[in-house]
């Protein structure tokens, strides 16, 4: 069994695997607005599967449907080979996007309530609680009220609670939102451990780096529809190598259409006083950029292209855009 200090990396499940989640033509609407619009996807058992898209793309709505909080308006959902039913949730766990701890309960009480809700025996709950709290580094805080935990500790407790029942499928709704880098990495170590023990992870996120780094397969969503699907490497195939972010001292001195006409340039997107350009190679592009508009530039940042660039190329908008319609958390 792995310990918390073991460094794990994400590796895709091998061989033929059954689907942990199978969705066909799923439709769900909030009034007139369709949150899921004929969505179809298949999550292989044992995978780390990412649903990547901006707020309002339907990720959280889908997760809330999988735990039975919403009923589909149309389409078919099968989880772990069965149609949705309350008893199926005994084999599922979830970490919600928003905090979900009772501030008036201790860490151990939180775990024990979960055990009772899922029909575990007192002995099994006690045994697993001790092991899990040790694994997530909260064994010395077992008697503490959850209100006294830090943000990172609360997240780890929520994860430990979700893992208490040893779920076959773990749903994660932006689990690292608002966590610092250390806490994120720590949480992902535990998630990778769970995956190494056979738990399928279905991650809803708008963090492209997280999806790219940890997910075996990523589905890009826009307005409740699948835009693209594949491994991060497959999705990025054909994309320009580098992404250049340019900060202007006012409105962009060179307009997007002009930049797009330069040789080696892929996509160009502009947000306020910032331009984001994908290019074959950053050096020749920057040489020309500084020749034409060097005096108007306050900063330049070069990185490898990400799934964000893939998304923009396919949808024409950014994943982490401002002003997106809010989506109710799962």
């Amino acid at each position: 069994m792995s310990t918390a200090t073991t460094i794990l990396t994400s590796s895709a499940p091998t061989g033929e695997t059954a689907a942990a989640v199978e969705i066909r033509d799923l439709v769900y609407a909030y009034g007139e607005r369709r949150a899921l619009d004929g969505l179809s996807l298949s999550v292989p058992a044992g995978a780390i599967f990412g649903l990547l898209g901006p707020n309002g793309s339907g990720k959280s709505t889908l997760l809330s449907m999988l735990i039975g909080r919403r009923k589909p308006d149309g389409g078919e959902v099968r989880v772990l080979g069965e149609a949705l039913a309350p008893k199926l949730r005994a084999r599922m766990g979830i970490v919600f996007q928003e905090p979900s701890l009772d501030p008036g309960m201790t860490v151990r009480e939180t775990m024990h309530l979960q055990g009772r809700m899922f029909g575990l025996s007192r002995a099994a709950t006690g045994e697993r609680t001790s092991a899990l709290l040790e694994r997530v580094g909260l064994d010395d805080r077992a008697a503490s009220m959850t209100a006294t935990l830090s943000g990172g500790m609360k997240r780890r407790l929520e994860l430990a609670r979700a893992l208490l029942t040893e779920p076959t499928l773990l749903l994660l709704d932006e689990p690292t939102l608002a966590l610092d880098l250390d806490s994120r990495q720590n949480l992902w170590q535990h998630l990778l451990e769970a995956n190494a023990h056979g738990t399928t992870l279905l991650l809803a996120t708008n963090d492209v780096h997280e999806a790219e780094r940890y997910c075996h397969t990523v589905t890009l969503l826009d307005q409740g529809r699948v835009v693209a699907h594949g491994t991060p490497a497959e999705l990025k195939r054909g994309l320009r190598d580098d992404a250049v972010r340019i900060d202007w001292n006012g409105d962009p001195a060179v307009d997007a259409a002009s930049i797009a006409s330069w040789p080696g340039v892929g996509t160009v997107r502009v947000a306020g006083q910032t331009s984001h350009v994908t290019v074959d190679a950053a050096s020749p592009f920057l040489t020309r950029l500084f020749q034409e508009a060097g005096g108007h530039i306050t900063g330049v940042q070069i990185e490898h292209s990400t799934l964000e660039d893939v998304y923009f190329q396919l949808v024409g908008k950014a994943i982490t855009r401002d002003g997106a319609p809010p989506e109710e958390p799962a």
Partner: protein
Amino acid sequence: MMDALNAIAGLLVRDLRGFFRSRSQLYSSVFFPLMLLAILGAGVQDGLDPRNIDDYVTFLTPGMIVMTALFSSTFSSATYYQDRDSGVLRVLFAAPHSQRVVLLGKTLGSVVIGIAQALVVLGVAAAIPAIKFRWQYGVAQSVVLTVVAVVLLNLFLSGLGQLLASRIRSMQGFHLVMNLVLFPFLFFSGAFFPLDHLPIWLKLLGRINPLSYGVDLMQVALYARNSDGYFGVPLDLAVLGVLAVGVFYLGTSRSVSLER
């Protein structure tokens, strides 16, 4: 079935633990009715010298027990909002049970807390020398009748609290509605003054008021002498029973929104 009972028991234990940890709720729920009993009871008894009631402090006690049930049910139902806002309700609904099981566990917590509080008030009141319960059916039978009334009232009020909480989005709105509806109900329930000397329109309001039947039942058990009460014990039990089961069922059936 066993899993559902286990979940309900888990939720009950959680709510009871939360109640006992909340010292202010624990003490105020018992002291407030007793304080009112002392101040209002002695004030009216000695200051106003009511002619229709020979022992106003004792007469007032059943009303104070009903008020305790009312307060505790309101307060416990408000934990629905705390659970919703803390995200706990989301987690509970993700367990492998129907929504009804979860709501049943939560509502049962408020029922048990309400019953315990009401019985503490009854016990303390019985020990106060100035309060002279008449126990017209004998102590044991009268206590049983009082406990039945307390249980039925708490089932009804907790169900009503849950029913309102599932429809009203904000806790402020919930308290406003509970106070607006239930306080007037308490005033013309016979808790503070007997219904039989009131004008006809107040008598009518008293008759359609669910709390009147609880007050009547307790007054029959604790205060009355050679009387089966204003409505009569069978009618009291029938009305309270139907309301308790019906409203409790409705309160735990309603689909709950997790939106704030």
